[in-house]
């Protein structure tokens, strides 16, 4: 008992010390979430400023690490010519269809796997065997089967989002307390009603986690897929910039992907707050 108390009192100031010495002055009276967001915004700004200074002073090689200001100039140029938007919209369309084509079957199959043992017994080994294969390694095969057109890119994104959503949905349904399924049965919920009122909402927190993972995976794969045999898209833009040695453009492409990923994650957090309002949040 004594040692417990001792460690407790010793831990409290130790744990609070780093927060006090935070470089981005901790504003008083902000909610923890607002504070987290502020810190999240401040850290890249600080990093960019540092980069600019180092590139301008020649501390780092500006050929490989052009200063952010020149990347910004390239960004404006690409916007003006419409090049950026053409590539971005091409990627977004592919991502959209890929997420839909991969995510929805994964969601339905995952719910079925979670609810029905035989379905799980049938699909589980297939998932276990194919999941570890790196999706990028399948690209040549996908190109062979689906050709160099839109289909191969969409399939790559779909593959990326399929597995995390499937695996998380199954796990999400399996972790639902059995008592809720008994309640459904007792109150006369049919198969579809059980899906809709118990399996889907009960698994929703894990499904959302799977979707977040899948969306990130889709971004990785779209970039890779567009580098090979595409005539547009952000991946193509980056690859083309490498061939033309326009490093600024390359960075613009990378930043666009980063911003896309960040935007998706913010949007998904917001969606999660709306569809899982019942989780107690700290």
């Amino acid at each position: 008992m004594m040692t417990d108390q001792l460690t407790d009192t010793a831990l409290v100031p130790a744990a609070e010390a780093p927060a006090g010495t935070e470089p981005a002055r901790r504003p008083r009276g902000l909610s923890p979430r607002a504070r987290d967001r502020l810190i999240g915004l401040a850290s890249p700004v600080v990093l960019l400023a540092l980069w600019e200074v180092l590139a301008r002073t020649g501390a780092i090689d500006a050929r490989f690490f052009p200063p952010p200001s020149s990347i910004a100039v390239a960004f404006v140029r690409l916007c003006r010519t419409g090049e950026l938007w053409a590539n971005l919209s091409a990627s977004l369309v592919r991502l959209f269809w890929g997420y839909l084509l991969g995510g929805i079957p994964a969601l339905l199959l995952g719910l079925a796997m979670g609810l029905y043992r035989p379905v799980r017994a049938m699909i589980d080994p297939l998932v276990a065997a194919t999941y570890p294969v790196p999706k990028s390694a399948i690209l040549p095969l996908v190109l062979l089967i689906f050709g160099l057109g839109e289909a191969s890119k969409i399939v790559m994104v779909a593959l990326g989002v399929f597995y995390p959503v499937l695996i998380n949905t199954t796990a999400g349904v399996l972790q639902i307390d059995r008592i809720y399924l008994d309640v459904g049965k007792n109150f006369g919920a049919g198969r579809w009603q059980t899906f809709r009122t118990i399996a889907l909402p009960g698994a929703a927190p894990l499904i959302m986690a799977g979707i977040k993972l899948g969306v990130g995976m889709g971004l990785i794969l779209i970039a890779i897929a567009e580098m090979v045999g595409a005539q547009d898209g952000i991946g193509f833009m980056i690859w083309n910039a490498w061939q033309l040695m326009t490093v600024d453009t390359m960075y613009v492409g990378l930043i666009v992907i980063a911003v896309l990923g960040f935007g998706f994650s913010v949007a998904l957090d917001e969606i999660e707050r709306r569809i899982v309002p019942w989780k107690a949040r700290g």
Partner: protein
Amino acid sequence: MASPASVAPTPKIRIAGLGKRFATREGEFVALDRIALDIPRGSFCTIVGPSGCGKTTLLRILAGLEHASAGAAVIAADNPGKPVNAVVFQGDSIFPWMTVWNNAAYGLAMRGAPKAHIREVVGHYLDRTGLRPFADRYPHQLSGGMKQRVAIARAFATDPEVLLMDEPFSALDEQNRTLLQEELLRIWDEDKKTVVFITHSVDEAVTLGDQIIVMTAHPGRIKAIVEVPFARPRGVLALRKDPEYGALVFRIWSHLRDEVDRARRQETV
């Protein structure tokens, strides 16, 4: 349709030769053995027994959530339009992802009841349980007692032929338990549904029941059936002053004590 005269004497629930066995690693486990029991219409029947006596299994068989290994349990359906039973489960059974209102409306919604009917009935039971102001809350914002009130409202709202309650108050503290017992009796007095109420508390069995089934463990059998003489409506606290109450609790305890002792001896072997 049978005439009321021929319907009245038949029991609401008839359990005959009911047995349940589970295969376990140590061999066969007899959870229920030759249970025979008639529960009259409109009776509040409490089942009390040591843990492991199969009382929850019995309730789950009545609820249709498990199958009997032998014999049968039949609930007489007087009105084919009504659900045969509704269960108030032990522990947290209301959906965390639904508001209080939607939880209470669940059974009716699953049966495709008209919206106006759902609004009226759910409103009524939320009023009766004092939950109306919390209709839009989610369960994580409720206390344990309030959650069980939602489960009770959900079961009553479907207007089942038989209400099955599996230790619904066992996780509550003493004060809350007394309050909920009183509320339950008040709601039950409205239309005196046939109730099977499982409990491990002798006090609760005596307070609520018309008929107390005392069960034994390993194998689960009926040891005694005790009629409770107290008039309705009952006041949970007033009842405790009645000397008859103490005598009845004592009688049931002496039935149970042999059983608890026996179960303990078996555990230590």
